[in-house]
């Protein structure tokens, strides 16, 4: 989707903002450039996995739950309700998704029930924050705790009874079918195997995206453009966002702020619930306690990373999913190769700073960092397992630190609102 990222300093002092649009061509250009870079690195380092179809498809399924959580965050925060409770709603999603799938034997019903689970959490959040106007963070934190308690409690009551189930896990779940674009699978594999420059990498990318993809994954991906359309192209969406930007203004034009906030928060719960259901039904095929592993927070991070925009959060989740896939699949070698990628990118940035921005000092610093990273790459031949484990987190952090911060939350994000309080 062509999301317009209106970049601007959030500080009051900034000049009229430079608008730059991320359009299809730019996106494609970016992807192409990145792919080329990765391809070069692959050829240099021989870390074949960094662009393999397997990595791409793994990245995809690792990104989906984060993306869904992020979408949840997007919806509620666009309406001005901060949602730290995503983790809790994700947790509810995993449990109820699994439970629904088991009792009905139908994974899709499970998905629906999972969404419902998230919705329950969201309803709590909405009542607390919108109706009672309590602090959003407190409510969110509380929901994370309650959700954890509920699912653990329920597991002991429900799952430990079932065969194959236990105090902390469900029995095996019915799975959702996966589909492939027919015919091209094998040819792509061949191409990939040849290890040609760029061609094989492209093949890998395509194979990962087109071969045995879960239907749920496709649904999840579609939800991103859908969210963009609803929030940025419909009357309802405009009203919802206005509640996050300036609720009094919305109120003064007869928009029912409460209703819109409620809808937004509930939607947020549904998305998170879906994310949870994906974890238990598709990713794991079983409910396991602690399965979410803080993905709710990562999703929140992805959303902020994406500047409260669907496209941005998609990118954020993709980045996280990709790096996570890298470290899980081939740990050392891939992450080691990643060092070279980082070094090269930093070098490029340094050049840019020097030539375009004339910021010599910044350029020098960046260059030094680049050299340092390269040095590490050169002297080591792999990365210790303990370090690969946090590759995705560190990468996200680095990208955020490098990309100049132009983040802009909705103006009234997290501000309790009460009707008729406008002075």
């Amino acid at each position: 989707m062509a999301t317009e990222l209106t970049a601007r300093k959030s500080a009051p002092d900034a000049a009229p903002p430079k608008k730059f649009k991320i359009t299809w061509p730019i996106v494609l250009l970016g992807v192409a450039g990145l792919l080329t870079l990765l391809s070069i690195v692959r050829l240099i380092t021989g870390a074949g996995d960094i662009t393999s179809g397997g990595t791409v498809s793994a990245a995809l399924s690792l990104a989906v739950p984060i993306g869904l959580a992020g979408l949840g965050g997007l919806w509620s925060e666009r309406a001005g309700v901060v949602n730290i409770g995503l983790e809790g709603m994700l947790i509810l999603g995993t449990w109820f998704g699994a439970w629904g799938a088991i009792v009905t034997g139908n994974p899709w019903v499970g998905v629906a029930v999972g969404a419902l689970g998230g919705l329950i959490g969201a309803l709590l959040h909405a009542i607390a924050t919108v109706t009672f106007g309590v602090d959003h963070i407190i409510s969110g934190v509380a929901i994370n705790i309650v959700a954890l308690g509920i699912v653990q409690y329920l597991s002991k009551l429900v799952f430990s009874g079932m065969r194959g189930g236990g105090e902390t896990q469900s029995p095996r779940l019915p799975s959702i079918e996966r589909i492939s674009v027919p015919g091209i699978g094998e040819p792509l594999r061949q191409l990939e195997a040849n290890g040609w420059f760029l061609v094989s990498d492209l093949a890998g990318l395509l194979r990962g995206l087109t071969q045995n993809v879960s239907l749920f994954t496709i649904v999840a991906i579609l939800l991103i453009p859908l969210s963009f359309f609803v929030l940025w192209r419909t009357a309802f969406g405009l009203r919802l966002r206005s509640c996050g930007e300036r609720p009094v203004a919305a109120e003064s034009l007869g928009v029912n702020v409460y209703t819109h906030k409620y809808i937004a928060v509930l939607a947020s719960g549904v998305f998170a619930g879906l994310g949870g259901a994906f974890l238990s039904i598709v990713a794991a095929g079983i409910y396991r306690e602690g399965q979410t592993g803080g993905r709710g927070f990562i999703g929140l991070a992805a959303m902020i990373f994406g500047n409260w925009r669907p496209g941005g959060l998609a990118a954020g989740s993709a980045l996280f999913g990709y790096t996570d896939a890298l470290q899980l699949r081939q740990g050392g070698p891939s992450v080691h190769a990643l060092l070279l990628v980082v070094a090269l990118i930093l070098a490029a940035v340094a050049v840019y700073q020097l030539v375009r921005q004339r910021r010599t000092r910044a350029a020098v610093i960046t260059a030094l960092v680049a050299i340092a990273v390269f040095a590490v790459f050169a002297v080591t031949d792999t990365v210790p397992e303990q370090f690969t484990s946090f590759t995705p987190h560190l990468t996200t952090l680095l990208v955020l630190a490098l990309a100049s911060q132009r983040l802009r939350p909705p103006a009234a994000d997290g501000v309790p609102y009460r009707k008729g309080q406008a002075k």
Partner: protein
Amino acid sequence: MREAAISTPTTVVAETAVELEGITKRFPGVVANRDIRLVVQRGHVHAIVGENGAGKSTLMKILYGMQRPDEGVIKINGTPVAFRSPEGAIEAGIGMVHQHFMLADNLTVLENVILGSEPRKAGVAIDFAAARKKIKEISDAYGLGVRPDVLVEELGVGARQRVEILKVLFRGARILILDEPTAVLVPQEVEELFENLRVLVGQGLTIIFISHKLDEVLSVADAITVIRRGQTVASVDPAEVTARQLAELMVGSELPSPQTRGETVTDVAALTVRDLTVRTPDGRPVVDGVGFTIHKGEVLGIAGVEGNGQAELVEAIMGMRPAEGTITLAEVDISSWSTLRRRENGVGYIPEDRHRHGLLLEAPLWENRILGHQTQKPNVKGPWINRAGARKDTERIVAEYDVRTPGIDVDAAALSGGNQQKLIIGREMSGDPIVLIASHPTRGVDVGAQAAIWDHLRAARAEGLAVLLISADLDELIGLSDTLKVILRGRIVADVDPCDVTPERLGSAMTGAGERA
């Protein structure tokens, strides 16, 4: 309601657009409106005047359905109505431009305008093309000159004001409520606005107009209602009253004039600024080589249309934003000093936006007394906060500056705008500063408080205080200043002698059309 039912029946019905009867509205600790009666004829510009906190805005919000009256009836075109939300009012053809802009900065003008009544395609999707077209039409019809696709945050106040009006017209309102629409406009803009209003009235629309600027009121209004402390005290005909009489009706006091009597300017330089330049992050200069000297006992006025660099100039002098050039405070170069150090060394600061820069709204008054003077007696003993000292001195300010408050332990948010401003001024005057940077010291402050603030400024000036005064109120500028400079696009474009300049000439100078005085 009951009382309203048996209240005096009104004779006029046919040409009555709005009729409020026995409106009462209570807020915690405040009676905003008490048994108010208001009758507005169709096709009139009906002005409502009153002190700060008199209840004007509240009354209008009630008429607009944003707040529910505790008692009273509202009649639109003779028929009683009870709005549950602005939606009802909008349907009834009422539109309101609020005292504080009701615009979302991060949305485009178009989005702000259509919000709540969006033209649609296929029921769901917004029909942007249609919206754009309609906005263009209205904008052209009334010469509002509004560009639909820019972000509101990129607009100046004048443009924002026009967007607000466009919002109302977009909904086809026949009754317009304008709550202090001119507070932030320069004469030229005000003139334009009034032109627009006349066109509207000519087309049979009804306008309710609130302002603190009584001459304006007299110039546009067909009828005037005066509110004092939530009650209607008079309905007068503009033809028959003078501004002075109006003011007396409002406050029962003399209309104050900002004239500074007597020559107090010395030749001791207090603050000197040399080719000061402030740049935006992308290198564009917003303040461009500005230079001036303020002597002890001198008030230097800076006139200019909002958004021509005044705010940046002030923040640069306060050290709140990086700038090139030199600033000297009594022979000392302070260009490299931190804001704190500048304040410590006698630079007082009355910020333009008291809520964002002047106060901790959710802190008690005595903590607000400390704000900005965290390192100075009597607020602190070394690294320790001296609660007793601060509280005592707060009591002093409250008394000396007649800050109307139940006590010094209430949150600043509980005070009305005028009183908040008086607290700030009291705070900044204490610890007798060498220089006072005052931007819009009396904005949105009623005539009573205004007079008080002016007196304080004069007194301080007489004692040798140097004041940098920035204001949109030209009478204030001309009246208070010993020297006047006009700023345009970040540059000082004219020096004006306050003794022989009229607001009109000054205004045209500000818009660049002016001749050098």
